[in-house]
Every structure is written in C-alpha cells, then in structure tokens.
C-alpha cells in the first residue's frame, strides 16, 4: 500500500490460535524472507491454512505477533494490510465481470484510472478477451488465473495462496504450477503457498515448512528436506522412505561413520546425516529413499562393490510405472522395502518370488531418532484420505 | 463507541424483532384481561375467566372448527394438485411449459382482493350459492401456486443422477418414483402443505368475499372488531401461538438428537 515499507520479511513471533479447547496452531516462530516462494506443507487440519489466515488478517492470533518488515500488523484489519490472498475457492465476486473483479482492490484504494493496469494484468494471465465475462462463464483454470490477477494487481508485499490449485485436474495443475512460478520470478513478490501436495510444494517453493498437528516439523529447501528429513513425519510425508529399526554398534571418530545392525544386516551411515546423536548400544531409525537402492539377483551378489550397504530379501511385488519399476521386497530388516529402479535395461529375472540383494551407497543413508513412530507421515496421509472419503 | 458501531446491526435487528413480537405479547397479556365494556382494548384486571371457558362465546368455537376443516381440505387439495404440476414442470419437457409457468406465477403476483372480487363475479354470474364449497374452491386455488413453488424448488435441487442410479439398479418407473423421487421431494411437499395450511387457516380477504353467511375464524374476529371483541379471541390466539412454537421446538430438538445419534 505505502511504498515506504515496501519490502521486508514476514515475521511470525509466537503466534498461536485456539478455538475453545482445540489448538489449531501451537506457538510458532517463522520468518519468511522477502521475495521468496515459501510453501506451508501439511495434511488437512494441520494448521497451515489458519497460519495463512493470520498473516492475511482474516483470523486474529490468540497469542503472538505478525510483522511485515518493521511494522507490527497483528491488529490491522485485512483491508489495511498490504497482503492479498488467492482463496481456495477463488472467491470471485459472482455479480461482477472479470474486469471489475480485477479492478476491485484498486478502486477500493481510490484509484480511478484503472483501465491500463487491469488490461495489463489480464494480459499477464492471458485472459484479455474474457474481461467482460462473468466468473461462472469461465473454466476452473481461468477462474484461478483471475483470482491471481485480482490479488497481484495490488502489488502486495506478500501474496498468500491457499491451496489455489486444489480444484484443478492434474495436467492443468502442473501447468499452473509453472505459470505461478514464472509470475513470482517476474514480479518478485513474496509468495506464501499453502498446500497438502508435497510434489507441488517441492516444484514451486524455494523454502518449504512442513507442518504437522499445529507445529512446524522442519523447514528448509526442498532438496534439503528430501535428503535430510529430521523426523519420520517428514521422511514419510515428503516422498517415500524405507525406515529400518537398528541398534548402534559403534560410532566412529571425527568425521567417521556409524555402524549399525538390523536383524543380522550390517549397515553404515555418516554421523553427519543423523538427526540425533547416536550412541553405541542405542537404537536408531535408519532410512534410505527407494530410488537410491540398486537391486541384483541373489546369485550375483559378488558383483556388488565393497563398502556398500547390503540387505537380502525376496521380491513380493513389482509394478511397472513407465519410467521406473517399483519393487516391494520382503527382507529380515523390514517386511516391505520399496525399491525404484529406472527402466534402462530391464532384468527379466527380477519378478515376484525372486531372491535378491539390495545395495546402496552408505552416504545415501540417514538416521532418525528411534523414539518416534515409524509410521508418522504415512498415517497422517491415510487419515486425510479417510477424511476425504467420509465427507464424500 | 467502537462496540456500538460493531453491533449496530444486531441492535437494529433486535429492535425489528421486538416490533414483530410486541403484538403477540399484547395478545397474550390481554387474554388474562377482564374488560368492562364490549371491547378488549384497555387493561382492567387480571382474570382467568376466558381461559377457563374458551368456547364461552357463541359461534367462536364453531368458526374455529370450520376454519380447521377448510384448511385441512384445502391443504390436501392444493398439495396433491400442486405437487403433480411441480413434477410435470421439472421432470418433463413439453410445449406449454412457459405458459404453465406464467399461469402458476400469476396468482402470487396479484393483490388478493383482485382474485377475491373476480371469483365473486364468477359465483354471482353462475348463480352458485356462497358457503363452505366456494371458500374451499377459492383456498385451493390460491394455495396451489405456493405448493408448486415449494415442491419445484426441492425437486430442482435434486440430483437427476439419483433417479438414473435407481433405474440402473433395476427399479422400474413406479419404483423409482416411490422409493427415490418421492422421499427426496418430501420436505418440499411438506413445506408446501404447511404453507397452504397456514395461508388457508388465516385467510381473510378472499374468504370475506366468497363466504356468504358462513363464518370462519378470521371472519368471526373481523365481525367482533365491529360488535365487540371477546377475550376468548386472545385465548385462542395465544394458545395457537404457544402450540406452534412448542411443536417447532420439539421437532427441532428431536431432529438435532437424531442427527447427533447417527453422525454423518
């Protein structure tokens, strides 16, 4: 709104939200750097939308403050905040045409000559010829672009996106993800994007905060979160992880490795990739991503290079996905190890029932605190799916 | 000051509500009055006489019974005829649809007195004796449109795929109608019936024109406004009000319980 305070980070300091006895968001500190594309990722009901609404001013936090740059905006009503929202349902005004929807914010701020800006904005989202249509005459994807245009035209300091792509089909969603990313790079405004789709978060955002039950579990760049999950929730919610319960045999010296054993298998991983401090004799959850694992028939075990982590097992299921084949392997360390193999040269011997050896680079192994549930992220996903089914 | 501004709409709304409720309060209070003259407009003293003997005025309870009787028959007639029209309008494509829609809308868009006067013109010209039957005919006529509107709204909001699903699952046309369409349309039909009953029971203008010497309850009240208003009128007004509110409240509580018992 005012150019003086233009720029500045979004600072959430100890904000929380209670509804009666239910705590939607636990006290939360979060700084969203100016100009970043920030994603709040989590299953439904995790508090991500409430957090977003507190930034927008649509919800007053029970405790804590919301800051924009140096300004405390905690008690500022939404119509006085230099923040705009793209709503999940788009919330386009049904009685106004596209042009008037987009011009709405400008007009409210007393700008009378809006034509040039509105036309430009409609061109940006490629809807120039639809200016005089009503929202219900547009497709879902077009409505979504109107919602973005309506918010962006105000040049907010922060643009909030509340699951804006949820209602679109897969192909359109991919297209809009790239489109939004392009617009963000072009205008350089801070985007805060709420989503339950981990792929969407990773594709679009440069920083992702994974939320669970009203708390931020982990925050970081997508690759960092994926490669170094700090909790089982993150490990399972972002992609798929094979988690193996193991006991620590020895912890190497400076820059050394951790040796663990799980049901007879000796495994090794770098200390640096453990989210807790492993102690000899203690327990550790050892994780490895399915695509890091190679698989060979049991009788070719000798071809595996030295120093790699090895686990034997039997293929119980294989599904052909196209770019890869996904195997489920029953082994002593874990009954359902998942393995993704690129379809470069398909080995006809790798069929259900085949005895195999799995192996991977110890560097690709991560360690998690064993005191947490191995199923954290997976049950959350299953729970959310169940909710969707029940409501349908 | 801030509080006042934020709650202005609440205050204004409650003022309106008071305006709406005030006459009912007066009716109730004055049902316990013991007026000196023939008219029950000024407070004299507390008395339970009228409550002890609600039918103590000549013809009052007869008129009430007649009104109930007419309202029941009118509701039945209007609901059956109206629901049939509504189904035809929503579920079938036929040529005269536009004309039928306009014909249904017309009675609702006309001052009641115009219909009342024209019906009287018909009955006078044809030499038909005014009385029970002319009242009933008139009531069915003006209730019909409201039933059509209520049922149409409900059937329109119904997913046509439900009927297709029923047919896919081996239900014939009759079965589909009885087991799927009718149960789903039932709330609309009930709403239309309730509205008909209320409209018919409380109707005065059309009845006044077409009743001849027959006295319905509103006609009785109208007459008493000229001759003298017995306290019993207030007793009956109060009793109907309390009864209706109780029925609605009980219905709501039962509905809420049932919802709680079997969560969706």
């Amino acid at each position, binding site marked *: 709104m005012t150019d003086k305070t233009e720029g500045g980070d979004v600072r959430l300091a100890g904000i929380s939200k209670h509804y009666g006895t239910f705590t939607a968001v636990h006290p939360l500190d979060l700084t969203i750097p100016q100009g970043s594309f920030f994603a709040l990722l989590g299953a439904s009901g995790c508090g991500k939308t409430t957090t977003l609404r507190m930034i927008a*001013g649509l919800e007053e936090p029970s405790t804590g403050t919301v800051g924009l740059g140096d300004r405390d905006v905690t008690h500022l*009503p*939404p*119509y006085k905040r230099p923040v705009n*929202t793209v*709503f999940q*349902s788009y*919330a*386009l005004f049904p*009685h106004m045409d596209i042009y008037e929807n987009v011009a*709405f914010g400008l007009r*409210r701020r007393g700008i009378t000559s809006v034509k040039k800006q509105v036309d430009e904005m409609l061109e940006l989202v490629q809807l120039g010829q639809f200016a005089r249509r009503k929202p219900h005459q547009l497709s879902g994807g077009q409505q979504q672009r109107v919602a973005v245009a*309506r918010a962006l035209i105000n040049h907010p300091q922060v643009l909030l996106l509340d699951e804006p792509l949820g209602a679109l089909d897969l192909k359109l969603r991919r297209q809009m993800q790239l489109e939004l990313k392009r617009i963000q790079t072009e205008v350089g405004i801070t985007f805060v994007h709420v989503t339950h789709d981990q792929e969407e978060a990773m594709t679009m955002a440069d920083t992702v905060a994974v939320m669970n039950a009203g708390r931020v579990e982990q925050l970081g760049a997508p690759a960092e979160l994926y490669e170094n999950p700090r909790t089982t929730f993150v490990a399972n919610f972002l992609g798929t992880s094979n988690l193996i319960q193991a006991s620590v045999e020895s912890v190497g010296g400076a820059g050394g490795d951790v040796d663990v054993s799980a049901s007879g298998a000796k495994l090794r991983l770098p200390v640096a990739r453990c989210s807790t401090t492993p102690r000899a004799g203690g327990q550790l959850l050892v994780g490895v991503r399915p695509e890091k694992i190679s698989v060979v028939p049991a009788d070719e075990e000798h071809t595996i290079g030295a120093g790699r982590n090895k686990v034997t097992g039997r293929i119980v299921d294989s599904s052909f996905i196209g770019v890869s084949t996904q195997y489920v392997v029953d082994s002593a360390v874990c009954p359902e190890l998942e393995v993704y193999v690129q379809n470069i040269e398909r080995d006809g011997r790798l069929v259900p029932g085949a005895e195999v050896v799995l192996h991977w680079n110890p560097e690709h192994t991560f360690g998690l605190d064993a005191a947490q549930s191995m199923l954290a992220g997976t049950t959350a996903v299953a729970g959310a799916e169940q909710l969707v089914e029940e409501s349908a | 000051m801030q509080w006042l501004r934020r709650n202005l*709409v609440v205050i204004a709304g*409650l003022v*309106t509500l008071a*305006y*709406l409720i005030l*006459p*009912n309060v*007066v*009716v109730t209070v*004055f049902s316990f009055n013991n007026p000196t003259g023939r008219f029950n*407009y000024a407070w004299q003293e507390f008395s339970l006489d009228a409550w002890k003997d609600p039918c103590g005025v000549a013809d009052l309870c007869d008129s009430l019974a007649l009104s109930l009787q007419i309202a029941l028959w009118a509701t039945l007639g209007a609901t059956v*005829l109206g629901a*049939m*029209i509504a189904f*035809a309008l929503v579920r079938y494509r036929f040529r005269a649809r536009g004309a039928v829609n306009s014909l*249904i*809308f017309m009675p609702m*868009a*006309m*001052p009641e*007195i*115009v*219909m009342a*006067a*024209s019906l009287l*013109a*018909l009955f006078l010209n044809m030499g038909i004796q005014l009385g029970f039957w002319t009242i009933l005919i008139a009531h*069915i*006529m003006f209730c*019909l449109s409201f039933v059509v509107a209520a049922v149409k709204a409900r059937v329109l909001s119904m997913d046509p795929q439900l009927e297709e699903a029923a047919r896919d699952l081996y239900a014939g046309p009759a079965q589909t109608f009885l087991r799927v369409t009718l149960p789903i349309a039932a709330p609309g039909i009930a709403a239309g019936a309730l509205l008909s009953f*209320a409209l018919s*029971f*409380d109707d*005065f203008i059309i009845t*006044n024109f077409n009743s001849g010497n027959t006295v319905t309850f*509103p006609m009785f*009240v109208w007459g008493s*406004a000229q001759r003298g208003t017995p306290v019993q*009128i*207030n007793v009956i*007004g109060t009793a*109907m*009000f309390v*009864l*209706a*509110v109780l029925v*609605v409240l009980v219905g709501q509580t039962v509905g809420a319980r049932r919802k709680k018992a079997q969560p969706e």
Partner: protein
Amino acid sequence: MSATAAPPQAAAPAEPPAHKPSARKRLVPYWLLLPGILWLLVFFVLPMAYQASTSVQTGSLEEGFQVTWHFRTYWDALTEYYPQFLRSLLYAGTATALCLLLGYPLAYLIAFRAGRWRNLLLILVIAPFFTSFLIRTLAWKTILADGGPVVAALNTVGFLDVTSWLGLTEGDRVLATPLAVVCGLTYNFLPFMILPLYTSLERIDTRLHEAAQDLYARPATVFRKVTFPLSMPGVVAGTLLTFIPASGDYVNAELLGSADTRMIGNVIQSQYLRILDYPTAAALSFILMAVVLVMVTIYIRRAGTEDLV
C-alpha cells in the same frame, strides 16, 4: 464398444419410426398437469373474464345487469376514486420501504451474526403467523391507544410533532391516522420481507466478504459492493411480496384507520359487498391489477433480475 461401430449405432436412435415413445408416455406430463391447471383456468382465469364482462355491464341489482360495453365505468371509477388509488400506492410503497429498512438488519443478523441463536430467531420471525393476523392487528389498537404509553413516549420525544407536520398524525393521536395504517401494513408484511432476504443472504459465501476485505474494502464498502448486490434477488422478492398484497389490503385501513385513510381495497370491498355496484367494483379491481402489474414489470426490469420469475 469399438470406435468403428459407434457411428452407425449412434445414428439409430435419431430415427423415430424405429423407436417411437409410446403415446401413453408422452401424455404423462399432461395428465399430471390437467387437474391443477384446470382448477386454475376455471377458478382463476375464467373469473377474470367474468369480472371483465361485469366491468362493462350496466344496470341495477333489481333489474339485473346487461353487457352494454360501457367503458365509461372505468373513467368514472378512476375520476371518483383516484385519491384512494394514490393513497393505496403511497401507503403500500411507504410500508414496503419501511419493511426493507427494518427487515434487512434482522435478516442480516440471522444470516451472519446469530450463530447458535439462528434457529430461535427464525422461529420468532415465523411464529407470529400462527396467531391470526386479524387478532394481531387488533392488538395494535391497544398498543397505539390514545394516551397509552407508546403514544406518550412518541409525544415526549417529539416524534408526533414531526409526523403531524408531515400530515401523518393529528394532534396527540396515532390511532385512526395514516401513521397507524402504515405501521399496521409494515407490521403485517414484515415477515414476507425478512424471509426472502434471509434466504438470499444466507446463500452468500462468507469467503466473498473475506476476499473483499482482503482487497482493501472497509466493512461498509463490503456491504455496499458485495453483500447488498448479492442479496438483490431477496430484495426484489421481498419488496414484491410486500408491495403487492399491501396495495390491495383493506384490513389495516379498516381496523386502524379512519374515513380519511380509506384505501382502494376498502372501496372495492364496499362496492362489492355493501353498495353492490358490481360494474364499478369490477372496473376498480381491474385498474388495481393493471397498475400493480405495470409497476411490478417495470420494477423487475429495472432491478435486472428477470430470471427471478
């Protein structure tokens, strides 16, 4: 079904002789319509025709009436009773405006601010219906009685000075004045305003309010630009449901008014039921119908909600 087989199969049902829907089936809608439509034709349309013919008859009760195409009746009726016509439209219009003014806050309150009180408030709006409207209208005689607390209060705050200056009241009286009649009309038709208003307000997605606030609209602007325009169907329906019956009403003028507040309904009623001048009464009621229809049509066009009907 293979793609190559599809075209000839798709073409088959388009050929009627092969697959003619039975006559019985085609007649179903007409059978459903028949009784109700017949009822309306005989007891709604036909009476209009009779009334039309009555309006151009001359004669007397004793000698009988004959159709003489005496259109002068219309002119005579209009010149004699135009004050009552104008008064009816004025009273009904004022009552409609008051209903909108009073009803909107309550409908808004129930739709957006009532929370768990919503159902109770709705019941309270509908409940008065269950007491005969004549009894409730008579209650206004008590409320507005001369020297009663309401009149005294209105007098103290100077309200009656303003209304008597406007010609709505006379001296210290409210009863038997235009104010009492308008007050009664407003009261009687208020629920017909509130319910459609509530229905259309309740349908508004509250996220639209949030979106408007997010786009820099203050609460007052949110109302002006979003809430009110979106409630237009309710406003139109409510004003029609109030204005149409109010314009033809004679109960309020009879019970709460005086000879100076007679509306056109009172004239038609007494012509038909007391004076028994049927042609004049018929002409008057046709004029009323025409006036209301024209006004309503213009209004609906202006409000731009033709799809309402």
